């Protein structure tokens, strides 16, 4: 479980990137917090720099849109989903449970 930041430090419409071997992007979309892989499944762009519209993020490079709830792309040019990660909030702090680590445990 990775502590990210205080809920109060991630305003609506904003995103943070957790660096690492597989960077993760954490979003506040209308008060809901979501975490997905930061790297777009199409090529090489950081989704935390993308445009948030409802619970979809648009990739800043070629505009593929991903559903933050499922990681599924809504259309070209991305074909593969990005992984989603579980988010929990403890004492006002956002925590992410990376999906792959979960599987190992």
């Amino acid at each position: 479980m990775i502590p990210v930041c205080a809920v109060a430090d991630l305003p609506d419409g904003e995103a943070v990137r957790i660096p690492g071997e597989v960077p993760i992007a954490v979003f506040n979309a209308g008060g809901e917090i979501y975490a997905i892989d930061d790297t777009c499944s199409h090529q090489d762009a950081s989704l935390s720099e993308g445009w948030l519209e409802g619970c979809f993020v648009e990739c800043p490079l070629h505009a593929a849109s991903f559903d933050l709830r499922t990681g599924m792309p809504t259309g070209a040019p991305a074909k593969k989903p990005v992984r989603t990660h579980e988010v929990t909030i403890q004492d006002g702090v956002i925590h992410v449970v990376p999906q792959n680590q979960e599987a190992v445990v």
Partner: protein
Amino acid sequence: MRSIAVVGASLAGLRAVEELRTQGFDGRITVIGEEPHRPYDRPPLSKAYLTGTCATEDLRLADAADTDELAAEWHLGVRADSLDPAARSVRLSDGTEVVADGIVIATGGRARPLPGAEGLAGVHTLRTLDDAVALRADLDASTAGVVVIGAGWIGAEVASTCRTLGLPVTVVEASTTPLARVLGATMGAHCAALHTDHGADLRTGAGVASLTSTGFGPWKRVTGVVLDDGTHLPADVVVVGIGMRPNTEWLAGSGLPVDNGVLCDAGCVTAFPSVVAVGDVARYHGPDGPVRHEHWSNASEQPAVAVRNLLAGTTIQEYHSSGYFWSDQYGTRLQVAGHPAGADEVTVVDGSPHDRRFVAEYRRAGTAVGVLAMNNPKQFGRLRRQLRAGAVPA
């Protein structure tokens, strides 16, 4: 309309097929592509593919399942040689004739060669996968270094890739400031500084007088580049990045007006309502007259409009270009939207060019017309949206 032929099996051609199916066309689709390869993505050719971090499979624009779903007939490795719009017929280089009610022209372009360099080993242009494979092989064997002729987008990306591969690189550019025509002199200079930041030798205002070579006949191989001022730049690999020419020769005698691209109306429809043109080859009627774009997002987005008009039999929708394109050089991402070339005022609105991280806004008579960003995708996205929202539809 019961049958449609798509000529050109690259980005714009594939998107046209996808759009035909998305928009409900359930008739016969025939795709004709001169290259033997299934549709692949060109941008990585000068970047990750050339450095070896992206494999041939990663270039594919559609996998087998995607193409099966499109239920099209693919004629690959065959060229369309002529078009007769009245007879609805496309004649192919293997002698076959394809008859179709509608035609989508998506034949893109080819790299402009350096005059006089034909058949000289070591001299490359970069447009196709095969070009990239050949260039990569020569780069791997290079000992004397690389001269890149032309500091446009492709030249700059190849120079950057060669530096990543550890090769000495000289970039020769005829104009005094690279990219000035598109970005203006100040921003062009900021982008060009990336070359010198990373140890490439940039020679601006330098014309190429001749190439030197060794050997004869098929063994003739480049040894360097002579500039107008007499300087000799030794090189065993020369990459020519001096632009492209639209592939329109096959349309001679078709009656279609062609002038630096296939001329079409604001909805990509040609002089024949049953023939549309998309992508790099299409010179459509834009807000300021005929215009042709040579970038990925245009080739990706134009087919939706062209196909709608083709299926409707008339122009019911106009195409509005976002002007968006990107370039990756020296680990730096450049992004452009709108039409900066028409601006009379450029302001850096975020960051600083000296930090190689900024966003600049281009204005004409006080109105925002374009955005350029270096390593700043987030702010770029914001301004690009404002630009679109503020744009007066033509």
